[in-house]
């Protein structure tokens, strides 16, 4: 027992259901991309700051945390994971490479419902600022040498 109007109503509901799912996917993807881009900016700026040899690890972490928890998108400080320091490995040791990893665990939301990995991370690697004078001399800059501070 149905008429044309009833079928149209069912199809309209189905349409708006599908449309709202697509719209949710688009909004979620946009937010995810915005978070990734913010993490990438933080990783790059952190790499430039720390590798300059003028800022300690603690200072760089404080600056990055402040940047990530302010502005848009504003990240939850509980979900932020930061690593500022030397890159591991023999080649990195020879080249004195720094590595900055900025990660974020998105708390709750549909991520946990559909079991998506809520962890996003961006990494930047750069060579540390060179020592002034020759390496075997005790004087000269920069203030923070590689794998120090």
């Amino acid at each position, binding site marked *: 027992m149905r008429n044309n109007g009833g079928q149209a109503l069912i199809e309209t509901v189905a349409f708006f259901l599908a449309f709202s799912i697509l719209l949710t996917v688009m909004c979620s993807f946009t937010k995810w991309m915005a978070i990734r881009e913010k993490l990438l900016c933080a990783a790059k700026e952190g790499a430039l700051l720390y590798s300059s040899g003028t800022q300690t690890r603690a200072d760089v972490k404080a600056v990055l945390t402040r940047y990530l928890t302010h502005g848009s998108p504003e990240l939850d400080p509980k979900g932020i994971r930061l690593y500022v320091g030397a890159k591991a490995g023999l080649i990195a040791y020879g080249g004195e490479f720094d590595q900055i990893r900025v990660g974020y665990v998105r708390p709750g939301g549909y991520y946990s419902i559909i079991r998506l990995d809520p962890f996003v991370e961006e*990494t930047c*690697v750069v060579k540390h600022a060179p020592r002034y004078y020759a390496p075997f001399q005790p004087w000269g800059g920069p203030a923070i040498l590689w794998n120090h501070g």
Partner: protein
Amino acid sequence: MPRWPTMNKWTMTQRGQLMLPMIALLFLFGMFLVLYVSWARHVYWQMRMDAASDLTALSVAREEARVLNYLDSAQGMENATLLKAGLFGHDVGTMLPVTEALFEGWNTLLVRTMGNPIAEKALVMSIATTVARANGATLIPIPRTNIDFMLKPHAVDVVVLSWPPTVRHFSSAYFTRLWFPKKTNPQPILRSWWTVCHGTICSDGRARVWLDVDPHSILSNGGFPTDELPWYRRVGIEPFYPQFSARRVPRVGRFLGIGQ
């Protein structure tokens, strides 16, 4: 049952179906979503390559600065073993026999570093490749500038004060800079320009070697001595401030000529 006011023969079939036009709408929106995701991925990778190219160029400039600091320090240490002066455009010097071996050690460092440009280029290339790959590049970075330290070797005839005295000729006893030889305290003109790619998405990064010395310093000689020094500054090898570092050339500044 009241009819939907906007329904007509174009949006509803004889049996009341709205499915076809709605599927068409969903398909269009799905296509838009696919394009949007593709565009967003492109923007993201472009941002990553911008970062990767900047960090690659900066890393290479820092490696060049490290070598310059090393060379400048090594030739500064030669002063402890060699008394040099410039006489009528010719460099002569004297040293004690006990310091001869020490001088040879410092000089070997200089000559081996500057005398093997292929090894230095290979080292720079490996640094650039490591940094670019670690930052997301999939292809080998391409250098857009030649790696050249712009230093000129100078020969010194040295009288070794042994008995009997001997004269030795060192063809690359020290190096002078080729950038702005008439200026006392110029910044180096060494540039690092690299193209880094992730697939077809590429970006250019630029950096420059920078001498981290107060521009008003009386002692600063631009890191290395020049050929144009007066006679009193040709006594010894000027070792002042081997404090080379590197700076990134800002992307916006390139269009305005800032920081070039």
